[in-house]
């Protein structure tokens, strides 16, 4: 098994329950593993939530953590995947002074080249949205920071896997037991 550290995307299907986040994050905390990013959202199944957590660690440890997450009563199933096994995106918002949009021609080129989208513009500021890989956002951030960014934020990773998850089947099996 791989003992080299790498980024893993952890996908956890759960009941929508107060306090479950606490239980899941504690499992990482116990082993002194830093969570790189975390996102919670509804999933493709009604009433089932999905956690997407990115961690940097080795596979041996990853497997043990997945087992410990999986055994939480309200976790339906936990998976881990490598970068190659998932399609993933992050999203970033940049708030920038409106004057710059007109004064600095370069900015317009940057927006166009980066496939960023203007969400809103008013007389004081405009907001750019960019979805993509983390590196692409980093790149855009570096280019824009030359002109000054009023606010910047980046979302946690969201990911879908190339493989099937079979959660509905699992739920059916639970119900038939």
């Amino acid at each position, binding site marked *: 098994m791989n003992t080299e550290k790498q980024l893993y995307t952890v996908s956890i299907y*759960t*009941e929508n329950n*107060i*306090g479950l986040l*606490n*239980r899941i994050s*504690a499992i990482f905390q*116990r082993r002194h593993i830093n969570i790189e990013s975390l996102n919670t959202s509804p999933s493709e199944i009604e009433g089932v939530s999905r956690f997407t957590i990115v961690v940097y660690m080795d596979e041996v440890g990853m*497997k*043990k953590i997945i*087992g*410990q997450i*999986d*055994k939480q*009563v*309200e*976790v*339906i199933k936990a998976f881990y995947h490598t970068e190659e096994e998932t399609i993933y995106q992050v999203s970033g918002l940049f708030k920038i002074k409106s004057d710059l949009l007109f004064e600095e021609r370069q900015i317009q080129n940057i927006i166009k080249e980066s496939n960023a989208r203007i969400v809103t513009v008013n007389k004081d500021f405009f907001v750019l949205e960019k979805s993509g890989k983390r590196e692409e956002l980093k790149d855009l951030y570096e280019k824009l920071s030359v002109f000054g960014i009023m606010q910047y934020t980046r979302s946690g990773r969201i990911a879908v896997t190339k493989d099937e998850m079979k959660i509905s089947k699992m*739920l059916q099996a*639970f*119900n038939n*037991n």
Partner: protein
Amino acid sequence: METQTITKIQEIKQITERISGSEAIVRCLIEEGVDIIYGYPGGAIMPVYDELFKFQDKIHHVLTRHEQGATHAAQGYARISGKVGVAIATSGPGATNLITGIADAQIDSTPMVCITGQVASHLLGSDAFQETDIIGISSPITKWNCQVTKAEDIPSVIAKAFYIAKSGRPGPVLIDITKDAQFSHFDFSYEKCTKVRSYNPVPKTDIQTVEEAAKLINQAKKPMIVWGQGVILGKAENQLKALVEKAGIPSAWTILGASAIPTSHPLNVGMVGMHGNYAPNILTNECDVLIAIGMRFDDRVTGSLNTYAKQAKIIHFEIDPAEVDKNVKTDIAVLGDAKASLEMLLPLLKENSHSDWHQKFKDLYAIEYEKVIKHDLYPTKEGLTMGEVLKEINLQSNGNAAIVTDVGQHQMIACRYADFNITKSNITSGGLGTMGFGLPAAIGAKMAAPDREVVSISGDGGYQMTIQELGTIFQQKAAVKIVVLNNDFLGMVRQWQQLFFEKRYASTEMVNPNFVAIAEGYYIKGKKVTKREELAPAVAEMMASKDAYFLEVCVEKEDNVFPMIPSGASVSDIRLE
């Protein structure tokens, strides 16, 4: 027609009744077959206590002297009976005082339901009087926990709590119920929980893994079994015995597995681990197939993992998939319930006797006997040993007593030397190593099994951590036999200071009170033994007593527990001196 309607309405009325949340809590406990609960009242749980007063003919509430005592008593009750132990406390400090017992139950897989009162829901998060975030605090140490803020949720949450606590790998569950939920009224009905859709307590056993395991066991020349508490929790004692006897496999146990097979069984080769027996530790590193059943390869069992059973194929029978490959990489994992999977395995096994291999265990036992056991059980020096006290208890109880221990040297000695004829007879804090566990756990054990002799064995350190529970013993007239092995030291820590910290005895010497006087202060008859000739008559008097009895035995101050695997060393580097 009309009478039919009336009957129907009456039927519905029987099913649902408008009652308070607090009454519902007590009624739910009765529905779950709870007869004894342990706890301590306080502001946020008072409505429930009011109902307990009304239902005292159905549920006996035991007032412990500290909430920690309530959890340990509930654990003792659960461990000896196999039923779910129940502890109850108020919010804030009442709830936080439960934490040590909950952590202990979590790591030792003890089924327990804890109910805590909570401030009214409109006060949550406001730092109200006696408010504490017990859900947040208890999350990492409970199998499941849940806060209830509406009375109508009480029945379903309590039903789920009992189901989760006892199913699969058991564990503690905490339910936190706000005071307004206890006060408000709703239409009560109760239905037991039989499944939770996201929870799979017993993984399905794959017959192929059982067949592979059988093949390995049949081919093995030097097989060895190490069983744990999973055998007891899974009620698989008979299946294990049948397996051991059919395949003729020398079998050892972890501390929590003790008593699943009688200590006198010829193929029972003793305890593994840090202070376990010489033979099973050494031969762990010589066996060709290691069959682990319902145990979790704790570091106190394995010593250094880098040198643990590297030569052996490892088969792991386990109910909790997260335990497989957690510490030791297994070759074959048989998931599922111990009883069911051993039943699948049995017909596939060939009859065998491995007598040459078994002889090796006997030879090593002979070495351990000469170097250690003889001196512990039949000392020639003046001072009393802990071992000879255990020998005397064995003799006078015929090995039929339930032994409840605390944590430290006396615990290791008790587990090494106690005779166990009956399963569920070793009640001890294994995983957490909670000093103060013994005395309150013995109360719970005695109340769950009043016909059994329950002997609490503690050291002078741990005994004083929960000594106030003598009050509970007195009030409940619980006939617990209390033995304190007094060496005026925190003995295990002192042993480590002697061996690894050049005898710098930092804060391990105890200046102790008059223990007999304290027991007598609680109207418990007590005796102190300092000489060998006093021991047998004193134990006899204790065993003959119909009531609780306190026996202090002053033992050699600086005796050490051997054999010992030093921390981080290999099991085969076990030291005899």
